[in-house]
């Protein structure tokens, strides 16, 4: 939804220069305009932009601005949801192309709340921010057993396993899941991130997670950092 005030001239995306178009896409992401983002993505691809460049320069760069303004309290949750949704529209077009060229997407994550825990508002916000940052997130919902996590990890092979818990009676289950990964010699394959209000830094360390994140913005920043670090370590 754009304000009438700013919508006076009809913008024809295909008539814009590359630079104008990416700028416009940043604005369209900010305004949560999914169709416009899809159109912009196609135009850039038609102009022979490689998919990973469209992803980084048009989409991720735009969502970074969204992230900053969310952090600063200028954008509200429903607006960020719209923006993330627009971003997903662009991603859907890029995904097959990225796979073809072997270019890595920003990152992938499986996320769910642990067994016994149905608190999911925080998890949903984390998903929103991660998708906004360009991650492909598979949300496996609430109340997940070790088996459910393992099954999802096997199926989606994500970079990151995310677990959320809001109860002191359920948060210890994170250790059960991590121990199961260790036991099956799978721990090294995934970055494990944990969060939820009753957790803290020491708890994250104690259960053997790679990171504890205090909020959704922290989660997406930490995820980006950890995925980059892991990829650099693997290639270097």
């Amino acid at each position: 939804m754009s304000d009438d005030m700013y919508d006076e001239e009809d913008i024809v995306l295909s008539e814009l220069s590359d630079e104008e178009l990416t700028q416009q896409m940043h604005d369209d992401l900010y305004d949560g305009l999914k169709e416009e983002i899809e159109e912009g993505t196609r135009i850039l691809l038609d102009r022979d932009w490689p998919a990973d460049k469209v992803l980084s320069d048009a989409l991720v760069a735009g969502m970074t601005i969204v992230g900053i303004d969310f952090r600063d309290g200028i954008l509200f949750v429903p607006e960020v949801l719209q923006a993330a949704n627009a971003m997903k529209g662009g991603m859907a077009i890029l995904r097959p192309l990225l796979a073809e060229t072997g270019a890595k997407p920003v990152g992938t994550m499986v996320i769910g709340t642990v067994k016994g825990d149905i608190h999911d508002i925080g998890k949903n916000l984390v998903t929103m921010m991660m998708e906004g940052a360009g991650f492909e997130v598979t949300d496996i919902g609430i109340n997940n057993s070790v088996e459910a996590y393992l099954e999802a990890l096997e199926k989606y092979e994500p970079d990151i396993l995310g677990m959320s818990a809001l109860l002191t009676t359920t948060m210890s289950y994170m250790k059960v899941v991590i121990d199961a990964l260790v036991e099956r010699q799978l721990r090294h394959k995934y970055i494990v991130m944990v969060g939820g209000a009753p957790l803290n830094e020491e708890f994250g360390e104690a259960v053997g997670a790679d990171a504890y994140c205090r909020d959704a913005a922290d989660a997406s920043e930490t995820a980006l950092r950890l995925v980059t670090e892991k990829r650099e370590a693997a290639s270097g």
Partner: protein
Amino acid sequence: MSQHSPRRRSGGRKAKRAARQQVQTEITAFIERKIPYFDYLDEESLSLIEHNADKVLEEIGIEFRDDQEALGILKDAGADVDGERVRFPSGMCRAIIQASAPAEYTQHARNPERNVIIGGDRTVLVPAYGSPFVRDLDQGRRYATIKDFENFVKLAYLAPGLHHSGGTVCEPVDLPVNKRHFDMIYSHLRYSDKPFMGSVTHPDRAQDTVDMAKQVFGDDFVEQNTVCTSLINANSPMTFDATMLGAAKVYARHNQATIISPFILAGAMSPVTLAGTVTQILAEALAGMAFIQMVRPGAPVVFGTFASAVSMQNGAPTFGTAEPSIVLYAAATLARRLGVPFRSGGGLCAAKIPDAQAAYESANTLQTAAIAGVNFMLHTAGWLEGGLSMGYEKFILDIDQAAMIKILLEGMDMSENGQAMDALRAVGPGAHFLGCEHTQANFETAFYRSIVADNNSFEQWQADGSLDAAQRANLIWKTMLNEYEEPPLEPAKHEALLDFINRRKASFPDSNY
């Protein structure tokens, strides 16, 4: 001014110092409201909300998840069960509730003087519930332990303004998850003689609560009377989960009370508008309470409402703002129209420490809840950080405010003494009232005396160490804990209780989830 009242020797300084400084011991089991109710909504709005809630129940329905038995009970009672989605014909829930749910009930305490009546014109003030963290000025914020739990039970026992020992006054994170309920219920039964709340995190734990109560109250007594009131949250929007349903069934079958609480962070768990939120709350509460009546007609059930709004900027719960107060007022009226007791309120805030934000947010919800006519006021004392932390100093600040609620609700004394015409005549224009007979007869109890507020001169305050309210509260809770004495529990009952706990604890391995 002439004063000829006969003066008797009262024991001089020693006696007076003792009397004025002692912790108040007189028992007020609960508050009896003597003032009119304040209805925020007019008849038209109330009927419209009731109508819309019926539509929600009839058209959208409520999910009862992972509990086949519950679905069977609902079906047998005439609900339309489609998978886990349960739809109720218009008016069905209301009719079931009104046919058998008590308008009020007595929750027995192990000290009968502290029995509370929940419902009608009564208000029962209850400590905060559920925090994984505690905080105090000396040690800051940390995970709660069973020691903290005991401390808060003791403080609640000593607080004249609190009528109830509460439930999970903080979460003893140092104990195994599947056994900590034994130690929590034990603390309530041993360190306090006020009524208490039971465990709800597993049906077995609800059963253990009932069985432990039987060791102290006797088997028959528990089956025939209500000795605990427990918190069953709806998993809003429009869902009840197996954990809560399981615990609720156990309590209902033993005639123990449950509070069916839609626990709403508006904007995330309900629509962003107030009318939409209230409609959803009513629909969820109706479905949950009707379910309890299907399990056992006549089992006490309370209409609960926990209203907060989320910050649209980050999703965090907010407290002490106007919108949840409006929701609370509306829900209270709807509960009265339905004819069941109502739970809400408390000293709610999002503040991290007992600062100005904590004070004003808590005062806002506390006063609103009192005026609105809350019968069971959970979270009256200690609440910080949206329920993540239980504060020792905050607890003291809150019990001070709580003690005032009684005065607020008991109304204006319109007796001859209250009218004070004698005093007005005796003093007349231009003089002062401090020494007149009427004042002499009434001054001690005339005005609420805060245990925390400092009303001294600046210089006096400075000479006393320039302490702020939290620092003064810090001294108070320490003194209270120092002076605490256990309310005696019959040794045979105590033995039986410990024996039960030890046997049960030994019968299955510890687990931390």
